[in-house]
């Protein structure tokens, strides 16, 4: 998996660290982690595609706003996603993503925890030894 959970941080919540060779890959990995916390991805189909566009101030806040958008789509349109294809603009202040998944099905989906929000605790994107890395703590 392109992300790993950090179980010793913020006990009541869920923290993870993701990494990738590209910014696009990092955002895709973070989207996958958020999804994995809410549902067993093996039980999700990819029947519905949704375009997500986000504009923000910098790369950090772009990731924050993007992940928040996925949580909003879960509540407003009852959509959970299994796959993400993200294109971050060269100025790293906007992105377009194609999210693939399906509406929540309580009978078929292996539902887990409802993610409330992305916190700013330890939040950040950095580049280290040629890899893009992000640390994210989600409020559960």
């Amino acid at each position, binding site marked *: 998996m392109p992300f790993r959970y950090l179980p010793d941080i913020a006990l009541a919540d869920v923290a993870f660290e993701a990494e990738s060779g590209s910014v696009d890959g990092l955002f895709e990995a973070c989207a996958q982690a958020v999804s994995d916390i809410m549902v067993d991805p093996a039980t999700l189909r990819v029947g519905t595609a949704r375009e997500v566009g986000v504009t923000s101030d910098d790369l950090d806040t772009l990731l924050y706003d993007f992940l928040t958008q996925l949580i909003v789509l879960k509540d407003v349109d009852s959509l959970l996603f299994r796959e993400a294809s993200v294109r971050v603009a060269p100025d790293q202040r906007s992105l377009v993503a194609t999210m693939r998944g399906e509406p929540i099905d309580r009978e078929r989906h*292996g539902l887990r925890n409802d993610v409330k*929000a992305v916190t700013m605790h330890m939040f950040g994107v950095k580049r280290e030894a040629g890899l893009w890395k992000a640390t994210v703590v989600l409020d559960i």
Partner: protein
Amino acid sequence: MPQIENIKQVSDVVWEIPTSHKPGMLVPARIYATKKLLDAMDAGVFEQVTNLACLPGIVRYAYAMADAHWGYGFPIGGVAAFDTETGVISPGGVGFDINCGMRLIRTNLSFPEVKPKIKELVDLMFRLVPAGVGVKGALRISDSQFDEVMKFGVKWCAENDLAWEDDPSHVEEGGYIKGADPSKVSRQARSRGIDQLGTLGSGNHYLEIQVVDPARFFDHALGKHFGIVEEDQVVVMVHCGSRGFGHQVGSDYLRVFDGAMKRYGIAVRDRELACAPFASKEGKDYYGAMVCAANMAFTNRQVIVQKVREAFSQVFHRDAEALDMHLVYDVCHNVAKVERHSYDGKSAEVLVHRKGATRSFGPGHPDIPASYRSVGQPVIIGGSMETGSYLLVGTSKAMEETFGSTAHGSGRTMSRTQAKREVRGADLQRRMLERGIYVKSATMEGLAEEAGMAYKDISEVVETMDAAGISKKVVALRPVGNIKG
């Protein structure tokens, strides 16, 4: 516990970290804990409570209650009061689940009457109160009605046949906090919340049927004041908050404050502590929006209680009124409120942040309903679904020491990941049934994460607050049926 430089013991259950501990601390930090609880606290608590002590305008102390554990920004179990003119307001000091809180409803049913019906009751309530990921409620309201919910909370419910006459007065702040400003709430927050009234959510939220524990009925006179009179009396407890609505208000303003801090020359040790002067535009806007979410949470718990009354009525073939299903009380444990307190020889309004902490106003306070005013405010401390909960009462000492605040629950000691490694949800469900607790959960993995072993001993937490005198024990409540979100 990590080595904390200069920590000094104030009493058996109060510890103080002086301002010399960390550059920038404006006030000392105070931790309410027995030595055992203190030693078991994770490093995050000490780091976070001392970060809190650095925020501009904080007065007296930064507090961590006995249930404190590592949160984001503030520790869970954190309390901080700020001068309303020179101090800040922090969305991270409230949490995303604005006005997450507890509600306790009494019944006149005894456990022998309820025991044969537990499964039927829990199954019915599970159908009536949606729980889990992304659930929507049965109540459909218009945008303008949602504005009324934001402004008037349980008062709106009372005017729309969703509350009994005496419900609003038995909710903290009389059922709604004044100062709501729906114009400060984003379209996205509205969209997330408008369909969620009457839903439980997920995580540690629950709806629980409980029985008075006769061996731990500490104060019968106080119990009687709150309508708890019998040694096998059945009550119902609700734990949830403002759902996606509050979560989005928190997210929106965290971003606003993250940018605004530069303008106000505020630097914080953790981005989640983002804050702005309470008197600033950003501060006022957030307060107006946060109050909207707090009032939505009161309404959410009210709609759930109406469903609980409906379920009991259906199962016992009697009106909920005949079952005496009155509200004992409803308390917030994630909120910031303007309150008048006496400290440092003066009486002044302060902005009290309670994040995973409960108001604990003592006898005589005008904000307590008339029927309880002579004894103090009911304080509801929710435990894990295995170990039970407590009803306590607020005290004058809490007014003197902690801005009228006490703990809110057990406090976690184990991560969610670790809990899942230790026990499988289905095994836990079976084990609890063997012990007389029928549990229904929206998710088996989520159930494992909430196992009792993942939490501190709630009795130790409650004994600490009782020994400190900032809330006094009334009665312990034992779970017999539980719906976990």
